[in-house]
């Protein structure tokens, strides 16, 4: 107890500054630059609204992340449940009084920003679970009460997000939650059981899907069936990526992008645009940067002493990985089109805010890695 207090208390600001993970910081900055340039390309090589607001958001949220990094990791542990409850409250707020856009009610108006709480939930769920399992004993993890509570924690936001309706985000929340649950030590058999249950209930779930969601899933299996309708996005995305070739068409020269063949090019399909202009090599480079980020987060988690920090880092790294792979698989035609942004790259404040909060918790873990949480 003594040792612990001494360790944390004696750290000076400069020591903290020194212990920041600079590789991670640099990688995030590089991503910021790349995403800003990509945004510039989606605006057709002009400094327009999307580019400006993306750059502004990146700068604000990056600074915010840097500042929040110096918060003691104990703060995050202490506010873990609160964080979750606040976000859950926002979700309920969104479904009651939220702003509706393109048929989905997923934003709350906070006067200075239109916040999408479902994006924040992606992080909040990890923090919440990390706190929950930090306390739990290994032999208690698989008992009924300790299975039921996390289940409720997970299902509640998922139901709220599905009803918005936002299938993509709810799937991503589910995936990050499930991964954290598994990492925390829940017996694999429960996953298998629930997987089987899901499979059986699938027909009933499909019956409840909105027609356009059903169409998307059907389209995934056969995009050429209706090339100008539902299959349009996936076909155009594949054309853009495929025509990029080894080195790409060049910055600002992606014809699929600037001639508006690409749908949602600054959000979900930002990777398509990037890949068309920078080709296979550019895509590999981007993947490499994401890889380094994930590796750094895992490494920080490994060196963390508290279970909370460790589980959060592992969980966060895994969910970033899931977000990236789901997004890329989607634009590459490996998965059906569900709305899922590419972290940092895609246009969208809430997603960027959530990711940056995640990074600041990771960074805090790094700075306070010797910290033991009661």
């Amino acid at each position: 107890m003594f040792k612990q207090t001494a360790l944390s208390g004696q750290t000076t600001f400069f020591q903290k500054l020194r212990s920041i993970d600079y590789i991670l910081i640099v990688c995030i900055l590089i991503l910021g630059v790349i995403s800003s340039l990509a945004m510039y390309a989606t605006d057709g090589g002009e400094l327009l609204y999307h580019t400006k607001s993306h750059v502004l958001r990146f700068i604000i949220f990056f600074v915010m992340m840097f500042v929040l990094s110096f918060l003691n990791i104990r703060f995050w542990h202490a506010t873990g449940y609160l964080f979750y409850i606040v976000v859950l409250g926002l979700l309920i707020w969104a479904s009651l009084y939220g702003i509706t856009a393109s048929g989905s009610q997923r934003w709350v108006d906070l006067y200075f920003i239109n916040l999408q709480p479902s994006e924040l939930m992606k992080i909040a769920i990890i923090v919440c679970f990390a706190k929950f399992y930090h306390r739990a004993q290994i032999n208690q993890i698989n008992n009924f009460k300790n299975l039921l509570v996390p289940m409720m924690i997970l299902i509640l936001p998922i139901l709220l997000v599905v009803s918005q309706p936002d299938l993509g985000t709810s799937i991503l929340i589910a995936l990050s939650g499930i991964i954290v649950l598994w990492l925390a030590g829940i017996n694999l058999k429960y996953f298998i059981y629930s997987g089987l249950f899901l499979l059986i209930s699938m027909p009933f779930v499909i019956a409840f899907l909105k027609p356009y969601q059903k169409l998307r899933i059907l389209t995934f299996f056969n995009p050429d069936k209706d090339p100008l309708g539902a299959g349009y996005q996936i076909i155009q995305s594949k054309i853009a990526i495929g025509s990029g070739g080894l080195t790409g068409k060049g910055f600002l020269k992606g014809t699929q992008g600037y001639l508006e063949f690409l749908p949602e090019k600054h959000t979900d399909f930002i990777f398509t645009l990037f890949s068309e202009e920078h080709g296979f090599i550019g895509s590999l480079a981007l993947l490499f940067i994401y890889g380094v980020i994930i590796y750094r987060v895992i490494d920080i988690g490994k060196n963390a002493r508290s279970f909370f920090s460790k589980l959060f880092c592992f969980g966060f790294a895994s969910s970033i990985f899931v977000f990236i792979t789901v997004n890329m698989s989607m634009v590459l035609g490996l998965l059906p089109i569900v709305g899922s942004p590419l972290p940092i790259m895609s246009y969208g404040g809430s997603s960027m805010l959530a990711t940056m909060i995640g990074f600041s918790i990771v960074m805090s873990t790094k700075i306070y890695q010797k910290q033991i949480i009661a």
Partner: protein
Amino acid sequence: MFGEGGDSGYKKLSTVNRRMFIMTAAKLVVFGGIITRLFTLQINENKKYLTLSDKNRLREWRLPPVRGDFEDFFGNKIASNLKVYQLHVVPEQVEDFRYLMIRLRDILNIDSHTFKKILKKKSQQKSWETLIISENLSWDQFAKINFYLHELSGAKPVLSVARNYPYDEKFTHLLGYVAQASEKDLIENEVIKKSHVPGLRVGKIGLEKTYENQLIGSNGIQRYEVNAYGKRINQIDFVEGKKGTNIKLTVDTEIQAQCNELLKDKAGSICVMDIYTGDLIAMHSSPSFDPNLFLYGISHENWNEILNNPKKPLINRSIQGLYPPGSTIKPIVALSALENDVISTKFKVNCTGKTEMYGQTYHCWKDTGHGIVNLRDALKVSCDTFFYEMSRRLGVDRLNLTAKKFGLGEKVFNGTYNEEKKGLIPSTQWKKNTLGRGWVLGETLITGIGQGYMQTTPLQLCLMTAQLANGGFKIKPKIIYDKKSDSYEKIKSEMEKNRIELLSDFQQDDALVDFSLEKKKRDTDLYKPLYRNQENVKFVLEAMFASTNEVRGTSYSSRISDKKYQFAGKTGTSQVKKITEIQRELDLDISQIPYKERDHALFVAFGPYVNPRYALSVFVEHGGSGSSAAAPLAKKLFKTIVDRHEEREKVREKSLMVI
């Protein structure tokens, strides 16, 4: 807090670490999968997707090709392209479309029907596509638009080209006309299909149709980069189209115009031909119509007027009209009889006005009869009785051979006009094959005066006359001017050579060879004699001279005594209906007979008599007698033809010098 470091805590940590390790391995595999997919798309299938991407972004716009001109022998444009003023609007670029349209309606006086049509068209096309408000603005309208242009933002006055026939109705049947390409045109003609753009005008009939592939020209091509909505972003490439070939004709606009004038308010045809080169100098069919009407889609009113005209303006009588040649066939009948040694020039017949043969009465046109006539007189006064007797001796089959040889019953322009008709020269064989009945001898008699089954086109009669007038040599009629074609001098010497050649083996008895064999070597027969003994041809020509220039000749009243213009001809009056005995008694004046039952008036002629160069045929449908309705037209025309000859020679010499 001991739990943190206790056994349980250790187990928890090792679980999470172990599971994270598994997770990391899985991540690597998934990343590998994504990279593989990227590799497949971007490296392996790059070509495929690159093509697809280009297909997405590049669009070609074909511009309408510029059609080749038609010009006459003297270089006058008789079909060309006119600059037209059009008004285009791109709805997307207009702030207030309704307001603009209402303003335009008031300025241009667009009627409500057209106005609705334009609005309908607008709703059918994309907002950035050009909407053509008017295809052909008058100069007044164009000036007005330009005056108000500052308040008509979005309206674009445009200069374009459209087919134009400056001589209106004068060349309609000869040239044909163009109109908007139909579904059928696209199916039938590959070339049209290849260069088709909306609003393309193509030849519908006549030379415009026949020479479509030469005239059409090639499209200009604009290659644009377009965005996903089809909007043009920027021009990548522009290839200028090539204008279609200009086609020069052998016709003389001045003579053609006079033909039009002469046949005004009549139904009929006039054809004029160079008897050596075969150049068609004029070919007019009346009534005609203005081909410019078809350019922008003919109005209902105009179309009905053309369609309901009892004189049927749509028929090109010169090549489509089939009529019994009447007495104009007599020179051929006479020639055939002489060639086949059926009679001699001294043979005489006593004409009493009618003759009984095979139990039937055959009338001469002159009820009182011609008295005793020889062949020369018979041609001169067109004595039917003489020809009944002569053709009885000749027989229809020998007449058939001679007539066909001289161009009757065969298409004159083989293939130049799709609508050209063959006509009919009967024979015993023909009747057996088509009607299934045997030839009746009485039919030979009426065939001998150009009635009965016999049907010819006015152009065939012109060719027949030309081939007689040049001394009896085969020529090739043409309407398309060709620099490389044989000159008058060359043809003349060629004919002379062939004449002497025939003279040297005169002893040969097979001068009249089977025509079916000759047909195969049609072109090799060019400039070869069509006769066995040229004296026979000369005799017929001289008799035709008498017919026009001697007292009692049927066309004596239309003669020109000036040697320079003097011509020789043969009249013809062909019956449309069998004349009954009562009618014969009544001897009605032409005005008393219903139009449809009146005789056709015909006249064939050549001139100048000394050194003839031109032959013509005049046909006036239901015009009455050849001597009163047809021959006077020829007299007026001949003056022009001869006067124009010098001009023509000048142009010809100039064109020779250019080579």
